[in-house]
């Protein structure tokens, strides 16, 4: 068994970044796409080039909240024989080999449901995860998973969306732990050219109601997006499809894409820093 220092706690990470005056960058990958070795190197590259947190995806056959890039990623990974168990072993290996960033495991609900919620949570905890995101688990159905997470000290990350309103929004905010994941767009994952004005308003609105860290995801693919989001009050951003898009153009030798991905991560992280600086100015 591997033991983790307190610095891996999500709250500590946000505290630390705030102290440093930086927004947080969470990089989302589906493990095993197109193979395990690449995923390990990819995650390491991201962590070394600015990713503060890793969103570690266990692929699912029917990723309904994901756009084309991540659908293809799940398909490739599964076609390569990936299983939830091997994913968890992969996470364990990353930890063993020194990964220091907090890890948020993400997958669809049938994966933990199939394994048994308690066992799933115990296994990912043991492998080194700090939290989970289940994009098809509504707040209304989350009790069981939250309970299982509680036993392990794992946060179940809730999402809010542009369509989340009124009393429900408040209830979700009140129940959130770890951080709140703000879905930027009405739609699935995938890169977008432009950030919508309404997204920034959403961030500002939620910001004014809660102190919990806000991570803005879906559609983020450019430094400008990041600067705008963080300066509007987000505590950080998530990129996912943008990364998959880079290496999926070079599937024969995805390692060749790592330098470009490293550059991309550094830029996003730079946006997190710049956005935070602007935020201080805005106040």
């Amino acid at each position, binding site marked *: 068994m591997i033991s983790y220092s307190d610095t891996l706690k999500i709250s500590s990470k946000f505290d630390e970044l705030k102290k440093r005056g930086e927004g947080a960058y969470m990089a989302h990958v589906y493990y095993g796409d197109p193979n395990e070795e690449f995923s390990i190197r990819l995650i390491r590259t991201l962590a070394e080039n600015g990713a503060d947190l890793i969103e570690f995806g266990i692929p699912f056959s*029917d990723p*309904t*909240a994901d*756009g084309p890039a991540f659908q293809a990623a799940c*398909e490739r990974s599964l076609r390569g024989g990936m299983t939830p168990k091997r994913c968890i072993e992969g996470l364990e290996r990353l930890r063993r080999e020194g990964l220091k960033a907090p890890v948020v495991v993400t997958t669809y609900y049938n994966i933990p*449901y*199939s394994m048994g919620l308690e066992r799933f949570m115990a296994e990912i905890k043991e492998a080194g995860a700090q939290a989970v995101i289940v994009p098809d688990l509504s707040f209304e159905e989350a009790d069981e998973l939250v309970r299982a997470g509680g036993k392990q000290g794992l946060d179940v990350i809730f999402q809010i969306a542009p*369509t989340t309103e009124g009393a*429900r929004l408040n209830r979700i905010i009140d129940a959130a732990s770890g951080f709140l994941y703000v879905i930027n767009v009405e739609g699935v994952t995938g890169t977008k050219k432009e950030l919508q004005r309404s997204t920034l308003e959403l961030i500002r609105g939620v910001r004014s109601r809660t102190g919990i860290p806000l991570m803005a995801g879906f559609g983020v693919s450019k430094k400008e997006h990041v600067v705008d989001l963080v300066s509007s009050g987000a505590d950080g951003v998530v990129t996912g499809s943008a990364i998959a898009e880079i290496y999926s153009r070079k599937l024969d030798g995805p390692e060749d894409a790592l330098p470009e991905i490293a550059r991309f991560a550094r830029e996003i992280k730079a946006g997190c820093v710049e956005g935070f600086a602007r935020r201080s100015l805005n106040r």
Partner: protein
Amino acid sequence: MKKGRFGIFGGQYVSELLMPVLIELEEAFDRICPTEDFQRRFRGLLRDYGGRPTPLYYAQNLSGLVGFRVYLKREDLLCGGSHKLNNSLGQALLASRMNKKRIITETAAGQHGVSAAMAGNIVGLETEIFMGVKDMERQESNVKRMRLLGGRVTPVTTGYGLLKDAVSDTLREWTTSSRTTHYLMGSAVGPHPFPMIVATFQSVIGEEIKAQVLEKDGGLPDAIVACGSGGSNAVGAFRPFIEEKDVRLYFIEGGGESLDADNCAAAFALGRPGVLHGAVMQILQDEHGQIKPSRTRASGLNYPGRGPEISHLCQTGRVKAGYAFDRDVFEAVRVMCRTEGLIPALETAHAIAYVLKNKEDFDRDDVVVINYSGRGDKDLDLIFRHSEDKQ
């Protein structure tokens, strides 16, 4: 029982993006559906546009063959050729009352897509239908129908290009457009309130069966047999009989080549509870929880999940789950053609095949109602090729 739950089944497992529209939908359904105005228009359309009540036909020749009395509930005579219109008309009307501008849906056999396009035109809403490319090939004539009706048919190439992938894509599309768009769910699946809504609109089938069999046969039936995957025609037929414990209920799935074959769709024999497309259901899945597609010859039986209500009814033993293998299904088509002059949909033929192959389930003086869910026009080429091959 918690709202939207049937035992352990059901619930609302969706992206946060969709929760608000599901709440809106449930509220709208509860508010609008019971109004006299809605009911008048809905019932009026079912009658004058759809052709309800559909007959309960005493199949004399088939009864002679099997040795007990068989009635067919003739959903094949509903406009569009299957039970699907009951639900499509109801939801399309609801969508228009909710001021939605557009309908999206998915289809496998194409029957639901056709009925959605029809209903969309009736209420004046645009319709977009997602359909797996494999299903588009197999159900080409229904693709033509949908397009002629002005429906936009969007090919789904993700995953296996089958129904489950089409449902996924429709859900994705819905997350981007739920403010203006209604997802006209085609079977009694998906997150609450869909299973409830679909079952409510489809239960006109069972209500009619009850009245008709009483009138024709002087009592309740001994058994009702329905095919299904999502379970809308079955739940529709069963609902008014669930409390009538003497009425045996049979739910027949696609057996494919055999239980070992990878086209088998017998989720109650081979699956287990899981979460897909918004609900806990009985699901065909591998040991890790990845969803397994099935590919029986009947496109409409290839959804890997069983709606929450039918899942619960089968799990608790109130409904007996069975299956029929492809070869018996084609034989059932032949028997149906020859005895009663009716070409059934391949889906429907599963229910008939079950009765033909399991005569020992029924007594000499049993009254058995087969929910004859659809006509075989859409499957004509497949059936014809099969019958030629056998000669």
